[in-house]
């Protein structure tokens, strides 16, 4: 036994290079343990001192198994042994089995590489005595980080620095970077992209406001589309520069993730919200020069309501402003408030109807009460814009509900008749469902506007009324019908003459948001509800025949009871004081 110890300490000295060897008292106090090392289906015994550190043991094993120390991983009782531990600390006693995994060289190399990147330099463990272990250097990541993660971190450093450069640079640089095949390979890794995007601070800010945005990142298709759009980045920026030289947008192009928001199918609430936020910002930005413009005031009034639930913070709207030119709706508003025609008008009408842009633009600028901005029609940007608008039009065509949103913004009372006449034809050409064409009916869109306004008014004037009017919304499918019992109190509200559409405090973000309604339709087209009048026309007739003359009240009752005539009759009788 003594020989063993001497031999052992001798070996240890030789390996660890300890200058003076173990002090005498050390030799006496340490005890030798026989441990079994199991690896790859075979096992061997090793005699080592209790106070051997894991690192020392690994060094010993590395010579024995003819591999590098980095390749060794020791596992005891399911726990990974860290280099600075001692065997006795881990409870390794005589006869215990330690499992050894010898990693393949390639994975250990990448691990070492990332360890170097991630950690500060690892000091020599040999001088660390096991007593002073706790103040020893901690090398956790070397073992516990998976090389995949560390490789990810390593690689993601590269594109991050790239984009930091790009924030100062030009879109051509972005395009060049995208050409780089290694970058393309990175970009095609959706996990990496998701991580990359979500770690960007702007993105995180955006996600704080719109939690739905985080769902975007789970869709690799969206990421891909984002990248596609990024390839057009250069073109887009050219347009922006041409269009808004006077607007002093000095902040750089936002990261690609934001662009992806627009390419996303319009079925997401977040998109609608960002539309709205963009509109708001646009209006705010254009408000000052056109303070007294009733048109913009009206627009602003409408848009602001929709923004109530999520007040925009400075940074994301700024970035969204970068893409404002790409949003058809905001371009419309921008046009109308500023009188610039060229690109924006082209966004609204189809490309094939080429004669309309100028007409549309002039009409809008005519109706616009503001003044002196000249109507610019440079030919160059229009050609460039036709590329972009081609994509936009494709998007609109592919997503009719998106087109409906566009349309609703457009179909303001203040706009001229001409554009509204054009729109139904456009819609019919694209074979959109009848509902959307009905929406192009000026009276219908006016009605919807009034509904929205009424809701807003009710929200501010008498919010207490809103819950009672909730069944009306239920019938339309705007609200999920709660299981609580309102029915008894509801009939009161029906006698209110100017019944606006109800709004429940829970869903105030849905108030007046026909857009969002349409978005939800886009998600599930089968939910498309017809107008209550159409749905319940038969019941309406029967109610009329029975003598319930109040058309309005009949409709309310039918909506609340989902077309159940007898239940509606009961409600009506109650409300009319029978």
């Amino acid at each position, binding site marked *: 036994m003594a020989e063993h110890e001497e031999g052992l300490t001798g070996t240890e000295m030789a390996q660890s290079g300890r200058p003076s060897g173990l002090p005498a008292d050390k030799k006496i106090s340490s005890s030798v343990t026989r441990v079994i090392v199991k690896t790859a289906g075979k096992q061997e015994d090793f005699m080592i001192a209790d106070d051997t550190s894991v690192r020392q043991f690994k060094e010993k094993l590395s010579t024995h198994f003819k591999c590098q120390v980095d390749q060794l991983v020791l596992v005891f009782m399911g726990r990974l042994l860290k280099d600075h531990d001692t065997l006795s600390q881990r409870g390794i006693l005589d006869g215990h089995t330690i499992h050894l995994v010898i990693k*393949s060289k390639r994975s250990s190399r990448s691990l070492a590489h990332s360890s170097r990147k991630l950690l500060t330099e690892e000091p020599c463990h040999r001088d660390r005595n096991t007593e002073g272990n706790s103040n020893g250097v901690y090398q956790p990541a070397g073992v516990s980080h998976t090389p995949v993660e560390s490789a990810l971190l390593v690689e993601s450093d590269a594109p991050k620095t790239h984009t930091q450069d790009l924030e100062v640079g030009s879109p051509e640089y972005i395009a060049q970077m995208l050409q780089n095949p290694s970058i393309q390979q990175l970009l095609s890794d959706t996990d990496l992209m998701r991580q990359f995007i979500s770690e960007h601070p702007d993105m995180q800010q955006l996600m704080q406001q719109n939690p739905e945005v985080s769902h975007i990142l789970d869709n690799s298709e969206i990421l891909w589309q984002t990248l596609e759009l990024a390839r057009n980045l250069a073109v887009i920026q050219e347009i922006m520069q041409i269009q808004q030289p006077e607007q002093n947008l000095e902040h750089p192009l936002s990261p690609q993730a934001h662009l992806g928001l627009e390419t996303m199918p319009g079925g997401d609430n977040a998109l609608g919200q960002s539309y709205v936020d963009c509109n708001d910002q646009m209006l705010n930005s254009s408000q000052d020069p056109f303070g007294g413009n009733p048109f913009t005031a009206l627009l602003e009034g409408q848009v602001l309501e929709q923004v109530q639930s999520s007040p925009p913070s400075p940074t994301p709207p700024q970035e969204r402003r970068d893409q404002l030119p790409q949003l058809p709706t905001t371009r419309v508003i921008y046009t109308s408030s500023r009188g610039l025609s060229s690109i924006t008008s082209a966004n609204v009408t189809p490309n094939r109807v080429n004669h309309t842009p100028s007409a549309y633009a002039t009409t809008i600028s005519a109706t616009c009460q503001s003044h002196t901005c000249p109507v610019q029609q440079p030919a160059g940007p229009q050609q460039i814009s036709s590329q972009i608008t081609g994509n936009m039009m494709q998007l609109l065509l592919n997503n009719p509900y998106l087109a409906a949103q566009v349309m609703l913004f457009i179909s303001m009372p203040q706009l001229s008749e001409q554009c509204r006449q054009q729109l139904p034809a456009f819609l019919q050409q694209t074979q959109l469902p009848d509902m959307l064409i009905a929406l192009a009916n000026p009276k219908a869109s006016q009605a919807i506007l009034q509904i929205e306004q009424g809701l807003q008014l009710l929200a501010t004037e008498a919010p207490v009324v809103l819950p009672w009017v909730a069944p009306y919304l239920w019938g339309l499918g705007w609200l999920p019908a709660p299981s609580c019992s309102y029915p008894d109190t509801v009939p009161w509200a029906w006698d209110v003459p100017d019944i606006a559409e109800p709004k429940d405090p829970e869903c105030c973000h849905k108030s007046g948001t026909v857009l969002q309604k349409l978005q939800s339709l886009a998600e599930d087209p089968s939910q498309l509800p017809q107008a209550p009048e159409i749905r319940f026309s038969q019941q309406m007739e029967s109610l009329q025949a029975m003598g319930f003359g109040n058309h309005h009240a009949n409709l309310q009752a039918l909506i609340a009871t989902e077309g159940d005539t007898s239940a509606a009759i009961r409600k009506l009788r109650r409300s009319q004081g029978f």
Partner: protein
Amino acid sequence: PCKSYPWAEITLFPVWYLLFLRPVLSFLAYPVSSLRCRHTSIVVHKDEFYFGSSGISSCPPGGTLLGPPDSVVDVGSTEVTEELFQEYLSSLGESLFRREAYDVFENNCNTFTNEVAQFLTGRKIPSYITDLPSEILSTPFGQALRPFLVSIQIQPPGGSPVGRPNGQS
């Protein structure tokens, strides 16, 4: 349900083994056929791993044609990461548990499960499972049929083989 202890920089992954009890082939004599064949596999990192006559395989838990297990037993927790575990399996698959090494008595699925459980947690599988071969062989029928039984190859279908991902070292 991995537990992580950031202050100690430890993440623990739970480990289970799945136990499948299936009747032994019916043509065996009665005393032997009353035994239930016990097949086990180990589940860690949301995957099921087992050893059969075509080597180590993996599948989603309960994903073999055997269907859902008869019992799921908690073995413990391990710090071994998925990547390290793959390395370990690869090394096993080239040595102790390569496909040719399958022996229905000496080196079968339960041997594998036992081995891996010890690696991952330091604990063993209950002995009534791993003692099945000796149980069979202790009966005269078992002894008599041994030469025939030895060549039995059991491979639950539904999994995919586990190999070394990064190429040779």
